[in-house]
């Protein structure tokens, strides 16, 4: 056994340990903390699997925004957390049996995968020249399977609309989340003034690097969202009212630009979302920039929650 596979086994063991902890922990809050640590370790696994783009997303979502979302929910419901009686032992045994069967079947497929596995990598490499981008994952996301990405952004928006629809009637159109207040000269406000400029630079860098290296619109947008939320938590700024026209414009900017380019492909090119070869790169980068703004706003608002205060 080489030291590399020893490391992989150790990593897999720690990941599994965290996963088990997440399932069996008695306290919801501790379970969620375990899940965040699990997401962080998963980023290491993705690096090991040579999928740095996915590692970036995993670090940004599981270790960052997703973790904060779940931690917040755990903290807010902890006070009234009821301990409903656990499922009947027979149910538990049946569930364990079912889970073991599913796991065994999946493990068998892992062993039965043909070697070399069927792959689209040569096709992606062969067509990379048509977009002028060096990152194959961005190529797949923005060109070869652009429809998926477009719909994914729509799903993100739909989730936000769904979340907003949970608001009480009198708060509709108001500001989401509580208004945070903090000492404007305190430590938190200091950090919230110092970090976002750095974060914005890193976010834009990740977006820009995404053309040729791991990175992209979603990863960049996540960082921007986190910086915005930091400023919100320090009370430096307030969430916009959801009826604000500017906010809504930002929210639809990404999908609209994407859709417009797609329809342009239908009118002037070969098919829906077909980029003219000469303009492929600027078009893709343009879509990504609009998308980053939309993603940052949507993710931030998804974390803040439903409107809780009526618009003044």
């Amino acid at each position: 056994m080489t030291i590399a596979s020893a490391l992989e086994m150790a990593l897999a063991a720690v990941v599994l340990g965290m996963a088990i902890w997440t399932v069996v922990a008695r306290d919801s809050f501790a379970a969620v903390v375990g899940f965040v640590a699990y997401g962080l370790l998963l980023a290491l696994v993705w690096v090991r699997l040579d999928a740095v783009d996915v590692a970036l997303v995993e670090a940004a979502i599981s270790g960052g925004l997703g973790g904060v979302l779940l931690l917040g929910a755990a903290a807010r419901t902890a006070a009234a957390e009821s301990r409903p009686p656990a499922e009947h032992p027979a149910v538990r045994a049946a569930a364990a049996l079912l889970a073991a069967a599913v796991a065994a079947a999946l493990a068998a497929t892992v062993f039965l995968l043909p070697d070399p596995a069927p792959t689209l990598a040569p096709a992606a490499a062969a067509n990379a020249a048509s977009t002028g981008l060096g990152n194959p994952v961005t190529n797949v996301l923005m060109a070869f399977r652009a429809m998926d990405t477009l719909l994914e952004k729509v799903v993100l928006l739909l989730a936000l609309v769904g979340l907003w629809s949970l608001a009480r009637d009198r708060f509709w159109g108001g500001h989401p989340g509580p208004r945070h207040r903090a000492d404007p000269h305190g430590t938190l406000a200091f950090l919230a003034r110092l970090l976002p400029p750095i974060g914005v630079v890193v976010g834009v860098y990740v977006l820009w690097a995404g053309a040729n290296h791991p990175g992209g619109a979603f990863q960049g947008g996540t960082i921007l969202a986190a910086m915005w939320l930091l400023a919100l938590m320090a009370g430096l700024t307030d969430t916009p009212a959801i009826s604000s026209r500017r906010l809504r414009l930002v929210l639809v900017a990404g999908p609209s630009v994407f859709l417009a380019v797609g329809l342009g492909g239908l009118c002037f090119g070969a098919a829906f979302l077909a980029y003219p070869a000469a303009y492929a790169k600027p078009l893709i980068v343009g879509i990504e920039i609009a998308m980053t703004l939309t993603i940052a706003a949507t993710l931030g608002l998804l974390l803040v929650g439903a409107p809780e205060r009526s618009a003044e």
Partner: protein
Amino acid sequence: MKFMLDIVTVTAISAGAFFFLAGTVGLLRFPDTLTRLHALTKADNLGLGLVVLGLLPHAGSLRGGFKLVCVWLLALLAGATVSQLIARAALASEGSGSFTVDGPQP
């Protein structure tokens, strides 16, 4: 030259790992919150800093090295601020009541 750099790497990363060990042991064994915080900040600042120092000769390019240092500086900034906030939260919850999360009382 290569040999010298390797010595630097091994020394710095070992020292970094030692600080991580010290931080973790302190976090687990020290009796109260503030002493644990003391242990934690060593792992945070020195542990990561020494690992970054050890990796610098292997960064490959100037840009790679610059990013490594950036990671450390960010972690330093975050670590310093977060530990201060944690210390205030700890003091506040101990009932002294003279501190809040966001700053000292006037």
